[in-house]
């Protein structure tokens, strides 16, 4: 170099062209994801399975998001402040927000959506209702007054709480709490096109709070058979299908729910014997790739597991039982559990039902539980719905009021142990929720709640 400051020149031999490097992320293109089925409605709800979680996360956006490591994160609300010793929370919406239908999104939409959420009755909604001024009476439909929720300007939503509460905004990260417009329009990263048989086409939403997604369009195609879905991937017709290896998160728990009101498992000893007889390690080793034998109701990402005393072995009643299997439990997994029960002499009569219906069924139920919000207390509240325990409910109330994180975690572990002690909800395996791709779609990820996140995903040319 003749001019300018000198620096050392070192000769190097020419190298073959095509060194690895940096092209991307890139805007544009259409990606296809096959899923077992598509939800019949796109309105905000607590997702019943991984596909609902995916679709609702594409179409809708919440005021805040929850990260198990970092806690409450901005969503449509860019920040929040607290006053009155934590009893008043004011969320500040990001500026210039719009809904899919082009209307401006204001705090009034957020307030109306919180009201809808509270009446939905999900575990997260009930937690919020219990903490808001007037929340429980409103949620129960006793009144339309809700003094705890108020849009104080277009950008400010005020929440007034009955008492200081740990992580008071976490319930608002539920997909059921997503903000919609008066006509139901969402504000998620993708805009759904009209309904089409067996597939859902979504286009990038330029007004999304974190910016337009990188993909132009996204196509979700319902393909019921897993082998056929794999065929789509092999043929290059799909970029992602449920499976592994690929982006995944160990976030679901396979549980056997036992109705303690029904014989022969109305005796705690019988339930404990059933729990003790289930070969969790063998089940996982052969039928849950990427999974772990469950050492608690919640996967480790939500709550550090602490091994409790093993259930007492004993004779399992030899009788006919009804077993309801949720449709999102992989078939070979449910078949193996049925084989185990059969080998114990239980003679299960199996019926497969949609996940929501399966949870409401009586008798034995084989369910795949993923959290409404990936937060320990809220996830345990969902478990408590399946196995109500007064002691655990009291402990969860104490955890909700506990400001110290370490003590709160101790209480959550105690509540988990109290639920498990009743042997009405038997955790069998921690199961990954994952998606397999062919390498063309980059930067897809699965969050701690089991949601496939595609807003950052892009197609490699």
């Amino acid at each position, binding site marked *: *170099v*003749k*001019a*300018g*400051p*000198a*620096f*050392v*020149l*070192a*000769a*190097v*031999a*020419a*190298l*073959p*062209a*095509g*060194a*690895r*490097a*940096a*092209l*991307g*992320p*890139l*805007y*544009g293109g259409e990606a296809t994801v096959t899923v077992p089925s598509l939800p019949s409605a796109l309105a905000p709800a607590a997702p019943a399975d991984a596909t609902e979680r995916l679709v609702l996360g594409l179409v809708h956006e919440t005021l805040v998001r929850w990260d198990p490591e970092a806690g409450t994160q901005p969503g449509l609300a860019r920040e929040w402040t607290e006053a009155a010793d934590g009893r008043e929370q004011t969320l500040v919406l*990001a*500026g*210039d927000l719009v809904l899919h239908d082009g209307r401006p999104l204001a705090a009034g939409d957020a307030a109306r959506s919180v009201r809808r959420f509270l009446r939905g009755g999900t575990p997260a909604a009930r937690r919020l209702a219990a903490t808001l001024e007037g929340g429980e009476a409103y949620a129960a439909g006793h009144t339309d007054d809700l003094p705890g929720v108020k849009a104080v300007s277009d950008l400010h939503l005020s929440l007034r709480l009955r008492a200081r509460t740990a992580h008071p905004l976490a319930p608002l990260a539920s997909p059921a709490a997503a903000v919609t417009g008066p006509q139901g329009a969402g504000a998620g990263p993708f805009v759904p096109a009209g309904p089409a048989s067996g597939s859902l086409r979504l286009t990038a939403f*330029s*007004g*999304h*709070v*974190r*910016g*337009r*997604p*990188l993909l132009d369009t996204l196509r979700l195609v319902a393909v019921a058979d897993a082998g056929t879905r794999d065929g789509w991937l092999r043929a290059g017709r799909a970029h992602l299908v449920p499976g592994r290896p690929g982006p995944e998160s160990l976030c679901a728990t396979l549980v056997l729910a036992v109705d303690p009101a029904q014989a022969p498992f109305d005796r705690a000893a019988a339930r404990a014997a059933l729990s003790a007889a289930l070969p969790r390690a063998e089940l996982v080793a052969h039928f849950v790739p990427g999974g772990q034998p469950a050492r608690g109701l919640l996967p480790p990402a939500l709550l550090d597991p602490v091994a409790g005393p093993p259930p007492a072995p004993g004779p399992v009643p030899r009788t006919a039982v009804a077993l309801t299997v949720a449709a999102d439990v992989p078939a070979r997994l449910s078949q193996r559990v049925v084989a185990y029960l059969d080998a114990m002499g239980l003679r299960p009569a199996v019926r497969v039902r949609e996940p929501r219906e399966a949870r409401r069924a009586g008798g034995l139920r084989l369910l795949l539980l993923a959290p409404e919000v990936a937060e320990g207390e809220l996830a345990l509240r969902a478990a408590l719905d399946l196995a109500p325990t007064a002691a655990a409910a009291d402990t969860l109330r104490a955890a909700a009021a506990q400001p110290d994180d370490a003590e709160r975690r101790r209480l959550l572990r105690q509540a988990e142990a109290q639920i498990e002690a009743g042997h009405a909800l038997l955790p069998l395996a921690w199961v990954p929720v994952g998606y397999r791709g062919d390498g063309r779609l*980059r930067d897809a990820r699965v969050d701690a709640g089991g949601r496939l996140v595609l*807003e*950052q995903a892009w197609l*490699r*040319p």
Partner: protein
Amino acid sequence: VAAAALLCALAAPGPRTAPLPERALAVAWLKPAHFAVLFARWVGLYRWSGEAPALLSRADLPCHGRAVRWPGGLLAAHAAESSLWAMTSLSTHAVLLAADGDRLAVREQAAAVPWPGSRSGLRLRPDTSLLEGDLEGVGAGPFLAVAGGDAAVGADGRLLRAGAAQEAPRVGSALARAWPGWLLASSPAPPGEPDGITLLPADGPAVSAVILPGSVGALAARVDGDHVVTVLAVTEGETGPRLWLAALERPRP
């Protein structure tokens, strides 16, 4: 010219900055010892005096309030006038900035960045990092990057050159002109791996000149005889990008 017979020279390791606070969208030489760095909301004027480049001044761009997930930008430097046009995905206008001594001052605004070979200039497609605008002999875009009036990187990562006869090679999204007929480009693999700078003659095969420990997000080159002096925005791992200075010697048969 056979690739295997080419030699080039690299300044290694050249001066480099500490990690920058955010991603650099573009870089451009303004004077022999001054260059500009474009960020999403501002332009920085840097001086290189043998040590690590130092930030002299900054000029904020007029920005809208919408979020852009992966912003892009364009710098068009006019070294003879010590001025440059700047535009990003977040800016509302293209802005003409002049380097007055060590300071950057806003001189003018326009709807698009005036660009050689483009009648209406270039601009950012709304809410994306893609460049739009007719580029004579090259096409209408969208482009990932442009270099002069006759070369660009298409949205599919292929190098587009006016009058090119051979199949368009894949390159990365950083592109700059070197000696007449020669281009410099980052290489086309996705982020997360070591990057490289490839020399692309008008005819003949490309030559990989430099392997770098991170991804090249932006690239500028200034010809100085048989050398080009480059500024590279290189991102290693999770830290912000560093500005690297490196000189390449013209390949010899």
